[in-house]
């Protein structure tokens, strides 16, 4: 029986590795999910078998009843969480990071109170990491959820000495963990450590703003994985170590990609000062811009050969993806080559825009990554920016004084004509004025992303009978 369980775990580990490997490209990705489910099935069945001796001693019902109840409760919460609309995917992801981290932290807590003083220094180290990472990821993810769901203010909240407070709190938590490692029998220290980790999680997210969410969510993904991995060391379970390490490295890679796409370091995202930039930008003088009405925009789009649509978080907020799809269909029908340029940090989590556009039935081969889009933009007649701001700001290339200098951007300004759908001239999240708006080739289309797109659509000749002769 012991061997059977070990083989089930081994099969599970193999499935998880294959699942992630097949996730790398769209044609094999669905197979990846099925394999992942299979892996989890192996793991759960193996573990239920592991309780066999227990069940024979205490009766099947007594052993499995709470597990079954928990399975049902989990399924009842899990199904609606899987049915959330795609615009809500960032907050859903944050919430599920919270659940994952909570599970690891609770198991660690239970283990400590069961084995407490008998733990070796090494096991206590792993358990300490599991509980610290678990609890801090739990509250941090809940905070991220609150910000993304807009229950909490989305702007970064900063105060004097914030970094000092955060770092000293973290230092204190680390110190107590070390004391526990030295002497695992000091039970009163355990709740203090847990509480500090919970509080640190909250403080960590308070200064984080919406634009940094992609990095933070990836980082929390990594922590949740590492917490499960530490649990593997505590329980001496190799499957947990492997699965946890896979998640840890996945989250790490995503956060590195997000950081690079913003030209910032981890430390800068977590302890950064985006909040301080706003003051400087508020004084920017009013400069003239060219604006256009939907009719003009429609006429220009129709006469173009190649159009590049640049979506951003604003498109998600306005729920404009379906109107954008209609525009895509109408223009494509007229022979215009319409494609989408996706910046890695557009939206609130990695790949957010791709999922939204895929949901709106836009074929994924029309979605270009940044490098590909940038080599196409100089040959593009019209770049249509919908709800994106900082990722199109040419100051990132040219203005050394700009806070976003050095950040890789979509070179929208190299297209022959630029159109920007925007509510008003208010600066974007980072509070930085966008030079793109004042260029001679730029037309500002003032309005709501969804409303304006539908307006353009009405004025397209194909929408009025298809012949274009009226």
């Amino acid at each position, binding site marked *: 029986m012991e061997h059977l369980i070990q083989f089930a775990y081994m099969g599970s580990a193999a499935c998880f590795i294959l699942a*992630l490997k097949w*996730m790398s490209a*769209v044609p094999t*990705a669905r197979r990846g999910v099925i394999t*992942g*489910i299979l*892996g989890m099935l192996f*793991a*759960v069945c193996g*573990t239920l078998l592991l*309780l066999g001796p*227990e069940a024979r001693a205490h009766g099947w019902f007594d*052993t*499995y009843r*709470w*597990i079954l109840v*928990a399975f049902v*409760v*989990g*399924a009842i*919460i*899990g199904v609606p*969480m*899987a049915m*959330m609309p*795609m615009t809500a*995917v960032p907050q859903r*992801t944050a919430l*599920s*990071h919270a659940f*994952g981290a909570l*599970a690891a932290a*609770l*198991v660690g807590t239970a283990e400590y*109170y069961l084995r407490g003083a008998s733990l070796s220094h090494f096991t206590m180290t792993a358990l300490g990491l599991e509980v610290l990472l678990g609890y801090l990821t739990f509250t941090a993810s809940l905070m991220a959820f609150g910000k993304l769901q807009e229950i909490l203010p989305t702007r970064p909240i900063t105060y004097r000495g914030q970094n000092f407070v955060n770092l000293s709190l973290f230092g204190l938590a680390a110190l107590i963990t070390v004391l526990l490692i030295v002497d695992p029998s000091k039970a009163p220290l355990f709740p203090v450590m847990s509480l500090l980790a919970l509080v640190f999680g909250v403080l960590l997210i308070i200064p984080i703003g919406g634009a940094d969410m992609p990095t933070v969510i990836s980082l929390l*993904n990594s922590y*949740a*994985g590492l917490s*499960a*991995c530490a*649990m*593997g*060391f505590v329980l*001496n379970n190799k499957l947990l*170590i*492997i699965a946890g*390490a*896979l998640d840890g*490295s*996945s*989250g790490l*890679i995503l956060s590195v*990609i997000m950081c690079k796409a913003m030209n910032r370091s981890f430390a800068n995202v977590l302890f950064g000062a985006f909040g301080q930039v706003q003051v400087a930008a508020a004084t920017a003088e009013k400069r003239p811009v060219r604006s256009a009405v939907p009719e003009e925009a429609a006429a220009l789009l129709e006469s173009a050969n190649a159009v590049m649509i640049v979506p951003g978080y604003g498109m998600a907020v306005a729920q404009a993806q379906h109107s954008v799809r209609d525009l895509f269909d109408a223009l494509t029908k007229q022979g215009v080559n319409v494609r989408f340029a996706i910046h*890695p940090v557009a939206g609130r989590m*990695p*790949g957010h825009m*791709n*999922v939204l556009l895929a949901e709106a*039935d836009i*074929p994924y081969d029309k979605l270009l990554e940044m490098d590909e889009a940038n080599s196409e933009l100089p040959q593009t007649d019209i770049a249509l920016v919908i709800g994106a701001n900082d990722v199109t700001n040419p100051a990132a290339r040219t203005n050394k004084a700009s806070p976003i200098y050095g950040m890789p951007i979509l070179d929208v300004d190299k297209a022959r004509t630029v159109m920007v759908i925007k509510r008003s001239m208010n600066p974007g999240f980072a509070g930085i004025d966008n030079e793109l708006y004042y260029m001679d080739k730029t037309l500002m289309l003032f309005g709501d992303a969804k409303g304006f797109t539908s307006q353009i659509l009405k004025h397209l000749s194909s929408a009025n009978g298809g012949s274009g002769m009226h």
Partner: protein
Amino acid sequence: MESDILQNLYIFLLATFLGLEVIRHVSPLLHTPLMSLTNAISAIAVVGSIVIAGEQKTTLSAVLGTVAVAASMTNIVGGYMITYRMLVMFKKRGPKKS
């Protein structure tokens, strides 16, 4: 015990490198489903939770274990389902060019 620790550390090292290598090749197109998939996989914490909820050594551990199983199960069900739902949306239906 000593050799167990070393073995486990080796496994951690190899799994991390394997993870870095495999994930590096994931297309940015799929970053969101990737994250919801790894989220479901990190619910592997269910393994530890089930043991604790089943053994019920103390009332505290039984309660903590049961809540942990429920939290993990939420992620397993929710994570795999939404990942699959997202992937069904990715279609390569190249529209005709005129």
